[in-house]
């Protein structure tokens, strides 16, 4: 009898303790915490690659392998995206048929603003706006046909805009608006969800295996992975946007690619860009 009371008290105390501990954790799992996510995300990669300077992450596979790095350095002397960049600069300056220009649609005339995209449009639509989406909206608002999200013209335009932001730290805002937090969480969920016949998530390659090979190619770390966008890929012998990379990657893991500016892709870009806040824009970039 005397033995059972302490045991009962102990088990009750234990039960309380479990509830007390479980309570806050359960609540935390329901509330997105981008600030904590970004911190943990960046710490994970910095711990995994202690020899890299934080800024090195924006160079993707080139910071993972010496042989690749040398080839990249040689090509950066006179980079393959040079012509796309020039074309983009001309396109950006050329007025629409109605006389207006892209500069009229963007803060600071569209110069040095790339690091603020994507952003969450709280006022009007309640969704994530990427730079490419904003550019096409600008075109349509001024009577011009939209550009394809996966072809050269859009990539040239964003190449120029990225160039004017080179060196500026990624600066994505996730306001304390439930819709923005939901978009952020959706992007995060997409990133960690397995898909396609190969059953890979973005994380499978870019969080679990950066610096390792998928067949013969070296994988880039997810940290800073969008900072070099748009990219000239040797594989494409040409320039491509984030949308082009997302859709082709989905195909390569034998999944069904979404439409280029699908909500899931925009949310994914939002999440990935946010957790890389503070790392410099290095676009336009070159990649294998």
């Amino acid at each position, binding site marked *: 009898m005397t033995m059972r009371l302490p045991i009962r008290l102990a088990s009750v105390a234990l039960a309380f303790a479990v509830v007390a501990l479980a309570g806050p954790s359960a609540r935390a799992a329901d509330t997105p915490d981008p600030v904590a996510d970004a911190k943990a995300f960046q710490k994970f990669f910095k711990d995994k690659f202690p020899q890299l300077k934080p800024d090195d992450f924006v160079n993707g596979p080139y910071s993972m392998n010496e*042989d690749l790095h040398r*080839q990249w350095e040689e090509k950066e002397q006179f980079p393959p995206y040079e012509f796309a960049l020039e074309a983009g600069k001309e396109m950006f300056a050329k007025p629409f048929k109605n006389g207006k220009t892209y500069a009229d649609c963007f803060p600071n005339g569209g110069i040095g603003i790339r690091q603020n995209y994507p952003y969450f449009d709280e006022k009007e639509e309640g969704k994530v706006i990427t730079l490419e989406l904003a550019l096409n909206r600008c075109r349509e608002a001024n009577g011009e046909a939209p550009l394809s999200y996966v072809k050269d013209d859009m990539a040239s335009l964003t190449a120029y805009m990225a160039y004017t932001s080179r060196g500026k730290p990624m600066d994505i805002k996730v306001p304390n608006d439930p819709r923005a937090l939901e978009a952020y969480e959706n992007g995060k969920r997409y990133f960690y969800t397995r898909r396609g016949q190969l059953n890979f998530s973005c994380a499978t390659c870019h969080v679990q295996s950066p610096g390792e090979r998928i*067949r*013969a190619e070296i994988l880039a770390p997810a940290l800073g992975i969008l900072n070099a966008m748009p990219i000239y890929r*040797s*594989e494409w012998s040409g320039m491509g946007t984030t949308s082009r990379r997302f859709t*082709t990657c989905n195909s390569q893991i034998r999944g069904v690619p979404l439409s280029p500016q699908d909500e899931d892709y925009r949310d994914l870009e939002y999440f990935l860009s946010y957790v890389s806040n503070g790392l410099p824009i290095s676009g336009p970039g070159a990649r*294998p």
Partner: protein
Amino acid sequence: MTIVHSIPATRRLILQGAGSVALFGLGGILLAAPATAAANDKYPEEAFKQKSDADAIKALYGKPHEASDKVKLDAPEIAENGAVVPVSVTTTLSDVTSIAFFVSENPNALAASYQIPAGTTPSVANRLKMAKTCNVIAIVESSGKLYSATKEVKVTVGGCGG
């Protein structure tokens, strides 16, 4: 490959009073060994048509080459992408008149051939296509003799390349 500018033609030009014709390349022929595709400004069409590096070197130069550590060939271990492989050559040899690059398993081995006039540094960097893993051969012509360096470059089909 036949000699391109025969002596009679040169004499004809001089007789025609075309003294202002730039005689670079032609001057060399009057003094040096028999002209080959590499020794003048004409595009070495035949050399580019050859398949193997041996045949291409023969068509371009018509003489043997020896390996030399004075020819420094820089190429990657594993090409990032076979479409754009940065390859460069530099040499401490003197009196270099031409430098050529061959990719042994390309459909046509000769990739590029450069004329190096006097006063130009014997060093070239370029970007080449490689069809598959094989040897890149650099030939440097110095004082009429050929020296070479060879490096194997691995070319893979990229994993993310689908």
